[in-house]
Structures are given as structure tokens and as C-alpha cells.
């Protein structure tokens, strides 16, 4: 059973590596407009949300230390 698990894990690791190589290739080949289609959320929303959270954490937690 262990040997079988090891084989599966090795195969998964190989597949993961191949997937990452393909992602690099797609990044280099795919036009920007098409790349946009694969985004789950808008990047601007992510940046803005992080700014809000960072400000909140600063006010509630870190600002007291300085």
C-alpha cells in the first residue's frame, strides 16, 4: 500500500510540475485580453480590499505599538 501511495504521490508531483510549466507557457503566449477572462475577481477589487484591511489592522492592532 505504501509503495502504491508513493507512486501516486510521485505522479501527482510530476503532473504538478507539468501544470506549472504549461502555466508559464500560457502566460508567455496568451494575449493580455484573453488572460483577463480567467480572472475570478477584478484585480482592482483585491487591491482595494487589501488596503481597507491593512488600514483596519493598523488602527486596531499595530498603531498602539508606536
Amino acid at each position, binding site marked *: 500500500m505504501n509503495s502504491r501511495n508513493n507512486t501516486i504521490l510521485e505522479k501527482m508531483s510530476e503532473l*504538478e*510540475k*507539468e501544470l*506549472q*510549466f*504549461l*502555466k*508559464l*507557457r*500560457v*502566460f*508567455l503566449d*496568451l494575449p493580455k485580453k484573453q*488572460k483577463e477572462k*480567467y*480572472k*475570478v*475577481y477584478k*484585480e482592482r*477589487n*483585491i*487591491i482595494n*480590499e*487589501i*488596503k481597507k*484591511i*491593512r*488600514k483596519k*489592522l*493598523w*488602527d486596531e492592532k*499595530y498603531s498602539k*505599538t*508606536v
Partner: protein
Amino acid sequence: MKNTPKLFRVFLDTSVLLSGLNSPFGASAFIISLFKLKKVIIVISPEVILEAKLAVEKKFPKLSAISQDFLLSEPEIIEKLTPKEIQDAYKLIKSEDTPILTAAVKSKPDYLITLDKRFQKLAQSKVNFKILTPGDFVKIYRQKNETRSLPEEEIKKQLKELNNL
């Protein structure tokens, strides 16, 4: 004797981490793929993890599983900041970005990667490493690795092997 090329050590700001998980073919994802292929070292901090966790829980639930998966791939996580470290850094940059910049300085990176242009502008003159956007980092990575034929040559090799299966 074969020289092993030095791996870039990159500290990821939270925006880059989430952007990389959000879009599989963007520049931020390119950096994460390089990390998974052991071509760069990604460093983050407990502060980055906390911000990402709060953002995913509140606004981006579809990134929950992929965030967990990323953490399982074992990026380097530096130790939690001490109040003294934050106080010292606050003298340099009076901003809510202080904890992230402090963590980046502590991690001794080659690059800090951020999508926040304001943070980049504010902090660049205060540190002795480059602060770049993901797109600019990818350009530099590709220039520096051209002579080593990475990653495109490796991609071709991999695809050839796949075709031979």
C-alpha cells in the same frame, strides 16, 4: 564544477499573493509557478497571511481552497514581528504599510513585489532592495535567465517529453 544559479528571494505583498491565486495566467501567478518549480524562493509573513485570510473570508471566498493549497506548498514564512521592530520601522515609513515593509526588511529579500504603486513609491527610498510590480519582476527574471535558457527551454523540453509519451 557547475555553478548553481542563485535563486531570487522574493517577498510577496498580500495583493500579489491573492492576485496570483485569482488569475492563473497573470504575472503574479507566473511568480507563484516559478516558486512551485523551485526557480524562486517566495517569502511571506504572518501579517500577509492574516490579511489574505481576512480578505478571502470577507470578499473572495472562491480563493479559499487555492489559498490553503498555496500554504501547503510551503513558502518561507518569517517570524512574527516584535513591537520593537515595528516601532523602529515606523520611524522610516509612517504608514499602515509599516508591518509589511518591516516584515520584508526582516526577510532580507532580493525583491519586494507589490501591486500597490503608492506603497512602492513611499517605501522604495527607505530600503536596500528593489520594490517592483509583478510585471516588472517577470521582465527582470526573464532577462536574467535568458542565458540560462529558463524557463522557455525547459518548457519546450517538457512539452517534447509529453508528446513522446
